[in-house]
C-alpha cells in the first residue's frame, strides 16, 4: 500500500516586457505597431482621466471613487483583448477598461458625481455597470457566459475583480459553477495586494491567486500586471480558449495599488512610503513607452502629442459634464420596476406636490 503522489500541479507566471522596456520576442503577442500605439494612447488617457477625476473630487464636484493609476497595464491590457461581442462584467477599479469598451468619459463623470444616469451603460457595449458589493458580480458573468454558450455565440465574458474579492463566498461559487458548466468566462483578478488596509498576506494564505483555479478544475495563470504585453497575451489566449473550447480561466494580474484605496482613504495609516516607492518605478505606462522608443514608435514629440490629445478629451468631457442638467426628483421612482406600483405612483405624486408647495 504505497503512499504516492496522486496529482501535482504547477502555476506559471508570464512576463513579456521587462521593466527596462525590453521584450522577449518569443513571447511577444502579435500586435501591429498601430495597435501598440493605440494601447499606449488608451493607457495615457486612462491616467489623465483618473488624475482629473481626483482633482474634481477634491473640489467637491465628484463623490468617492477608486483611482486606477498604476493599474492600467492590468485592466487596459485585458480589455484590449476583448472583441465587441464579448462581455465585460467589472467591479469598480477598471476605468480604463470601461473607456476601451466605448463608454463616454462624461458618463463616468456623471456616475461618480452621484447621478444614476451615468450607470446607464448602453446595452450594445455589453458592459455591465459598476458593482460595488465586492465579489458578488462574478456569478453574473457565469450566467451570461452560460447563455452565450446556449446561443452558440463564439464570444466570451471577462469579469474583473480585486484579490480581496476572492475571499467572498460568491467567488468560490462562481469559479465552481463556471468549471462545472464549462462556460466561456475569464476571471480576471487585479491583485493590487491590498483590500483597503488589508495586505495580501492577511487576505489569503495561498501563495498565488492563480492557484485557486486548480481546486475547481480550471486553468490558472499569473501574469505581471504592470506588463501590458503579458496581460494582453494571457487574456487573448484565455478568451480564445473560452470562445472556442468553453474553457474558463482564472488570470491573476499581479500589480500594486500605488494610490489610496479610494478618495476617502488615507493609506499612510497602514503602509510605509518605502513599500510603495519601488512600485512607482514599475509604472506600466513608462515601461511601454520605453519599449516604444527603442522601436521608434514614440519620441518626445509623439509622447507630448498623445498627452495633449488625452488632456483635450478629458477637458471636453469635463465641459460636457458641467453642462448636464441635474436629474429631476421624479427620476427616483421611474426605474424600480418596469411598471410603477401603486405605492410608487402615490409616493412620487406626494413628493412632487410637496416640492411644489415649498416652491
Amino acid at each position: 500500500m504505497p503512499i504516492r503522489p496522486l496529482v501535482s500541479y504547477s502555476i506559471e507566471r508570464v512576463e513579456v516586457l521587462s521593466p527596462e522596456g525590453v521584450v522577449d520576442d518569443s513571447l511577444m503577442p502579435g500586435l501591429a505597431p498601430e495597435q501598440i500605439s493605440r494601447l499606449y494612447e488608451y493607457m495615457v488617457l486612462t491616467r489623465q482621466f483618473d488624475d482629473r477625476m481626483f482633482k474634481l473630487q477634491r473640489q467637491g464636484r465628484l463623490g468617492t471613487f477608486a483611482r486606477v493609476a498604476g493599474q492600467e497595464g492590468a485592466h487596459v491590457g485585458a480589455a484590449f483583448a476583448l472583441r465587441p461581442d464579448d462581455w465585460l462584467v467589472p467591479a469598480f477599479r477598471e476605468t480604463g477598461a470601461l473607456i476601451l469598451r466605448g463608454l463616454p468619459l462624461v458618463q463616468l463623470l456623471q456616475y461618480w458625481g452621484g447621478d444614476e444616469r451615468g450607470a446607464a451603460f448602453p446595452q450594445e457595449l455589453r458592459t455591465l455597470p459598476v458593482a460595488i458589493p465586492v465579489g458578488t458580480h462574478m456569478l453574473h458573468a457565469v450566467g451570461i457566459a452560460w447563455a452565450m454558450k446556449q446561443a452558440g455565440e463564439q464570444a466570451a465574458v471577462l469579469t474583473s475583480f480585486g484579490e480581496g474579492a476572492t475571499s467572498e463566498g460568491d467567488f468560490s461559487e462562481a469559479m465552481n459553477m463556471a468549471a462545472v458548466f464549462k462556460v466561456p468566462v475569464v476571471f480576471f483578478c487585479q491583485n493590487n495586494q491590498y483590500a483597503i488596509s488589508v495586505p495580501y498576506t492577511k487576505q489569503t494564505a495561498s501563495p498565488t491567486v492563480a492557484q485557486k483555479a486548480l481546486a475547481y478544475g480550471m486553468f490558472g495563470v499569473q501574469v505581471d500586471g504592470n506588463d501590458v504585453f503579458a496581460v494582453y497575451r494571457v487574456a487573448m489566449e484565455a478568451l480564445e480558449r473560452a470562445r472556442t473550447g468553453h474553457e474558463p480561466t482564472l488570470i491573476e494580474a499581479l500589480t500594486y495599488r500605488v494610490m489610496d484605496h479610494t478618495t476617502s482613504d488615507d493609506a499612510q495609516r497602514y503602509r510605509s512610503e518605502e513599500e510603495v516607492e519601488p512600485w512607482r518605478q514599475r509604472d506600466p505606462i513608462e515601461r511601454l513607452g520605453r519599449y516604444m522608443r527603442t522601436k521608434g514608435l514614440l519620441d518626445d514629440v509623439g509622447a507630448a502629442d498623445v498627452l495633449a490629445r488625452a488632456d483635450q478629451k478629458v477637458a471636453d468631457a469635463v465641459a460636457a459634464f458641467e453642462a448636464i442638467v441635474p436629474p429631476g426628483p421624479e427620476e427616483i421612482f421611474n426605474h424600480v420596476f418596469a411598471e410603477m406600483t401603486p405605492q410608487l405612483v402615490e409616493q412620487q405624486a406626494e413628493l412632487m406636490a410637496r416640492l411644489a408647495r415649498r416652491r
Partner: protein
Amino acid sequence: MARLNIVEAIDQALSQEMQLDSKVIILGEDVGRDGGVFRVTDGLVQRFGEERVIDTPLAESGIVGMAIGMAIAGYRPVAEIQFAGFAYPAYDQLVSHASRMRNRSRGEFTVPLVVRTPYGGGIRALEHHSESMEAVFAHVPGLKVVIPADPYEAKGLLAAAVRDPDPVIFMEPARIYRAIKMEVPEETYTLPLGKARVVREGKDVTAVAWGAHVRTLRDAAQRLEAEGEADVEIIDVRTLSPFDFETVVASVKKTGRAVIVHEAPRSCGFGAEISAQIMERAVLQLRSPVIRVAGFDTVPPLAKLEDYYQPDADSVVEAIKSTLKF
C-alpha cells in the same frame, strides 16, 4: 467629563468593555491597523493587540459565521460590518444560526454576539452605502436591534449590547457619527435594551423615531413650538427589538396623535409595526390617523437626488400639522 462624538463614544465603550472582560474581541474588515473606515476602532489594536482586534479577510458571511462559533466557545465577539449594505452576505448566518442557536439547542448553546454596522443615508456615498435595513433585522425572531441617537446613548447602549446574552445588531447612524458632540461620562455605564426614551415631553402629538431622525424631530418640535403650533412629545425608540410599546402607547394615550419617522422605505418599515401596536392598544384614544414620514419604496438615490429621499424637518412639520388639523 469629555465631550465626545458618536465615533469616539463607541470607541471608548469598546475599549472599556475589552478592558473589563478579556473575552471581548473585535473582528472585521480594516478594524485593526486602519482603525475602521470610520475610525470607530481607532487605537484598539495598539492597545489590545492583533489577537483581540482582528483584521479579517473580505468576507461578511465569514466574519459573522466565525463570530457565532467564537461566541459559542465563550468569547464575546463584536463583529464589524463595514456598511450595513454589505451585511447581506452575512444575513444567512444571522437568520439561520445566530438568532436560533439558543432555541435550537434549548438554551445549551448561546450566541452573545454584537454586530456593529454603520447605516443610513445622508453621507453622499456610493450605491449600497446608504441603506436602512433595521426592519429587515427586527423581523427576525432572536435578533435584538439597537440604534443609538447620540454619543451618550451610543456608549451606554453598546456596553449593554456587549454584555447581553443574545445576538445584537447595533446599527450606527453614519450621518451623525461626528455631527453631535456632548458630555459623556468617563466611567462605564449601560442603558437598558428594550426601553424607549422620552426625549422631550409634550401634550399635542407623539413623534417617534430612532437614530439620526431623533434630531430631525427635535428640529421640527422646536419650530412648531416657536410658531406656537404644537407641543410635541418625542420618543427615541432606541431598540427596535425588543420594542418598548408601553412607552409609545402611554404617550399616544396622552396626546391622541402619532407621527412616526424613518428613512427606510415606507412599506413594511418598522413604522408599520409601531402603527399597528398603537392601533391595537390605543385606537380609542386616537384623534387622528397615525402618520408615517418615511423613505420611498425605492433604492436610496445617489448624491444628486439623495436629499429628496431623506425625511426632513419640513416634512415632519407638515405631517404633524396635518394630524392637528384632522
